[in-house]
Structures are given as structure tokens and as C-alpha cells.
């Protein structure tokens, strides 16, 4: 049994019972654990704003609680909750379409108080990469964050986003291509995206 499953075992036992208080405690355990950390950071990366991320995570958790009866296998809570969160973030990002999307400029500031000569190039490259990620479309940003922040496989991303595996692969390919192109353009002195 993996560590994560061992952690969930007592929770699963409680969810299996019909007692309301046990169900509430199980939900609080599931949503308040490491899943919340990953959910909040996913939302922050997608929405680019801490407050919007907090609200989105809360809304997703509330939806999850209201639909908690649908969850048959608590070991799959995070994937199930993640699907809800992906949809909440899509809705919210649609709302903020005309504002600068994704990756908060403030959170994007890598500590440059004392960069040192060896770090200067690295910081410049990371800044450029941050700007490039900000310039991605929602679908591309979504697969990049799910793949490289949450470390999900292509099949897991497909399950979470509702897209086919082939579509996910394609989006990943074009997203990485776009990031490469943006970095190269900046290196060549072109305008940042």
C-alpha cells in the first residue's frame, strides 16, 4: 500500500458509514490535507491571483461537498476534486478574459535581491519563461500546469480535463513549442509576450 493510500484508509472507513458527522469529518480530512495545497497552487497558477485562487478553491470544495455522495472511492478524491477545480478555474478564467490571465506578476517575481553574477543569466531566463507561460492560451497553460506542476501523466490529464489523450499530447507539444519560441524571441531581442 502506498503512503497516500495508508493515509486515506481510516478516512475511507469513515466515508463508508452513513453517519453524517463521520462523512463531514472525512470530507474535512480529505479536502484539508495535501489535496488543498495542490488545489490552491493549481488555481493560483491558472488564475494568476491569490485571492481569485482562494475563492476558486473554496467554490470547488463547496461543490465537492454538495456532491460528496457521488464519490464512490475516496482514494480517488483528489482526482475527482481536481476535475471540479479544473472546471471552476475555466469558468473564472473566462470571466477574467480581458484581464491579464494566469501567473500573477507579483508571485512571478523571483528573488533578485542579490542575484550574483552566476545567477543573472538564469534569472533572466526564468523571467522570460514566466512571461512565456503567461502568454499561453488557457488550454495550453492548463496542460503545462497539470503536467509539470502536478506531475500528472497524459492519461491523468485527459481524465481531469475531459480531453482525449491525443488532444492532451498535442496541446503539450504546441505549448512547449510556444514556450521555446517565446524564449528564443526574447533571447534574440524581440518583444516579450
Amino acid at each position, binding site marked *: 500500500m502506498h503512503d497516500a493510500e495508508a493515509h486515506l484508509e481510516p478516512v475511507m472507513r469513515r466515508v463508508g458509514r452513513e453517519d453524517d458527522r463521520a462523512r463531514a*469529518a472525512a470530507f*474535512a480530512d480529505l479536502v484539508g490535507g495535501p489535496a488543498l495545497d495542490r488545489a*490552491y497552487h493549481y488555481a493560483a497558477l491558472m488564475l494568476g491571483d491569490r485571492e481569485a485562487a*482562494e475563492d476558486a478553491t*473554496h467554490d470547488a470544495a463547496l461543490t465537492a*461537498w454538495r456532491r460528496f*455522495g*457521488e464519490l464512490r472511492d475516496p482514494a480517488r478524491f483528489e482526482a475527482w476534486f481536481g476535475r471540479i477545480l479544473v472546471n471552476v478555474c475555466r469558468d473564472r478564467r473566462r470571466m477574467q478574459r480581458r484581464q491579464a490571465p494566469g501567473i500573477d506578476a507579483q508571485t512571478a517575481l523571483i528573488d533578485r535581491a542579490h542575484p550574483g553574477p552566476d545567477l543573472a543569466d538564469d534569472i533572466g531566463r526564468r523571467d522570460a519563461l514566466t512571461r512565456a*507561460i503567461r502568454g499561453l492560451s488557457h488550454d495550453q497553460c492548463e496542460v503545462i500546469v497539470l503536467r509539470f506542476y502536478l506531475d500528472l501523466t497524459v492519461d491523468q490529464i485527459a481524465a481531469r480535463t475531459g480531453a482525449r489523450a491525443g488532444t492532451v499530447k498535442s496541446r503539450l507539444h504546441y505549448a512547449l513549442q510556444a514556450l521555446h519560441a517565446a524564449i528564443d524571441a526574447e533571447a534574440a531581442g524581440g518583444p516579450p509576450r
Partner: protein
Amino acid sequence: MTDDDRFEDDVRDVLRDLARDPVPPSLVARVTGIPDRSPGPVSPRFSLAGPRLQWSTALVALVVLALVAGAFVLRGTGPAAGPSPSPTGLSGIVLPSPTPPLTVPPSVVAPTTSPTLTAPPTAAPGVAVPADFQPRSVTFASPTEGWVLGSTACSSARCAVIAHTLDAGRTWSRIAAPATTVNTDPRYPTSGVSAIRFADHLDGWAYGPDLWATHDGGSTWHKLDVTAFAGGPARVWDLEAAAGTAHLAYFAVTPAAFGIASTPATADGWTSPPVFLPVGAGPVPQVQLVIQGRAGWLIQVDREVIDGARLVDGSWSTWTPPCADSAGPAVLAAWSSTGLLADCDLGVWSTPQGEHLFTSANGGTTFKELNPAVPLDSAAGITTPDGTTIVVAGSGTGEPDHLIASFDGGRTWKTVVKPGLVTFTDLGFTTQTQGVVVVSTGLGMSYLLMTRDGGHTWVAVTFSCAPGMFCVNQSS
């Protein structure tokens, strides 16, 4: 390791750098507290994973309900039991066709709870909104879920009724409301409520001058003791909620001053910081509270801008608002925690210079004037979803009240609604394209207008339309 691998590692590193701040404790509290505050998960028998037979049964029931209800609405031509909005008299507004009134099933009528007031029946979700419902205040906690506080006739006054939508205003049902009266102005009545706000699906308030709260989505309401945080008799004047926190402005009777109080949205833990705005010398003190995320602004106007307060990083402190020396009033709107817009009526009490817009990109520290002037004589409200689309409610010289809009950051303007002699309240955008405003005539009639195209057109919403029925809102 290939170049591609190294590049992917760089992407991982950047994302982890960007997401290194800890989860806010307030979020942990909000999320883990959901089971304590929510009515609870939907019963598994209605879940998607439930038995197919039960789903099909529910589907058949819904279809039958929709057919019966649809036939009722489409057939109905009978007279309304109470006053209903007239489809004429408000130029510029697309008014709904009248729909027949629906009666509240006796089985869901609850006993009255106030000894001094014959309150309207408390209704269960899914009950139709009364035909004589007059909207007073509107709030949306998401693009789809909203609440409207309004009134209906009761024994001696207008009693509170709340309409609730889960589909962006297309259909409405009546939910429970505080057992109190609805006022048209929070300043002069000594009891009752005049406005409604919700922070999220569960936590909301009805206020002005009293303060009522719900933490179960409006199923139950309880009255709060304002003196507990105001330190004495006080009236709640304005209230806004965002980012899990609610803030209100109250008027303390002795000494006469405006104060502020805040609480986590999920609780009734109101506390008041030591920030007070003594009332100005004019005869009509009023305040406006604007909240965006964790930023907020309070402006006091008493014929002219008097003073203000600002919320920065969770703390309120005194603030010099825009146009403080302009001998005229001002109204505020914010579209982000740093983007602030002020409409100032410059020199109205000295040398009138008209309505001018001022914008701030640093949360109200400095302002820059936008040109040209706003083509109004006085402004009652302003809203903007992004700083580019701007809608202002007000009136011009010899002209009735109307809504004007700019879609290019204030450079050009056009009139979008011209309803006549009315009062506008709760003008605001829920999303980039969806907005609301309540329009009240001097004859006791009021309407909720909604825009779904970013402020270009505004359509009056009809409330007497239960879920499952076809209503005019659904086609808008």
C-alpha cells in the same frame, strides 16, 4: 539529459517557484468548515453514480413538471392578483411580458415569527416569487447564483422577500427571508433592511439599518446585535464582501461618526477597528463602501467629499479620497485591488464644472483625470468590470435619470437606458459581460435590469417564473 528534458525541468522549476507561497490559513478554515455550514451533500440516491432507475424516474418527473408548468404559463392570460410591472413608461428598457401569478402552496407556509409584524410566509426553495414582488437590492456570488431582496405587501408595510436564482437570473424561486420590513433608504428608518449581499453560496447579509445574517444559503436568517461591535446604537449603512471577509460601514449615533466592522464571512465575528469618520458639516451624510478582493475603500460624502478610509493588507486606516477639495460629491468603483475609478461632480457647491472621471492604478494613492467630462449633471453610481467599459447612472440638466456607458475608457459615451424619473441602486458587474442595476420609480414600482452583453443592452427581469417553466428571461 537532452535539451528538451532540461527545458522541461526549467518549466517545472519556474512553476514551483511561482507556487511556493503557503495555503492561506483563511482558506484552510473556510474549506474545512464547509461541512459545518453547508446543508450537506446531496443524497447519493440522486447522484450520477446512483441507480439508473431513480434517475430516469426523476427525469420523467421533471419532464411532466415542465410540460404542466409550460402549459400553464403559455395558456395563462388571466389578471394578476396584485400590481405587476407595467410594460410601458420606461423607455430604453426591454420589459418582460406579464406572466400569471403563482400561489405559494399552503404546505410550505411557515408561521410568522415577529410579534409586531405580520411577516410574509417563509417559503421553501422552489416556490414562486410573489406577483407583487418589488426588487430593492441585488447580489450575485457567482455568474450564475444570485439573490434579490425585495418586498411584498403585508399587514402594515412592505415585508421582506428574497428571490434566488441558480441560472444567472433566467429563473427565480422564493427562499426564506428575514422577518422584517424593507426600506427604501437606510438612513431614516429605525428598523428593517434595505439591501442584500452574499459572499459565497452560503454566507449572506440583509442590512440597512438592521443587520441580519445567514450561513446556510438563505435557508435561515438571524438578527445580529449591531451595538455589540459599534459600542452603542448604530445603523448599518453599507456592506460588501469579498475574499472570504465581509465589511460594513455603520453610522454611530453618539458621537455622530461612521465606523467600520469586519468579519470572516463564515461567522458572526464582527469587530470594529479604531477608524472613525466624523460626519461632515452638510445635511445629508452618506458613505459608500467598495471592496475588491482584500482591498477596500470607504468614502464619506456630505454634499461634498468629506473623508475616507482604505483597506490595505487586511487593515483599515484613514485615507484622503479623490476630489476631497473639489466642493462636490463623488462615487467610486473598483475593478481590481489596485484599479479604482471615481466620478467627481466638481465644484457643484462653488463653481460647477461638471462630472469628471479620475482613475487610480495604485489602489487610490494617486489619481489621474480622464478626459473628456462625463455628459451628466450628477452621478448616482458608477461601475466598471475592467476600467475600459464604464457605466454611470445619473441625470443631466433638464433630463431624466439614465444610464450612460463608455466602452473606450471614458473617451466617448452613449445612453444605454433612459427610464425617466427613477433611482438607481446596486449598479454593478458580476462578470465582464453580466451586470445588474435596480431601478425604482417614485410610484413604488421597481425593476431589476440585467445586461449580458457588457452594458450595451439592459433587460428587465421577471421573477414570477418558477424553475421548469418557460419565461421571457430564458430568451434574453
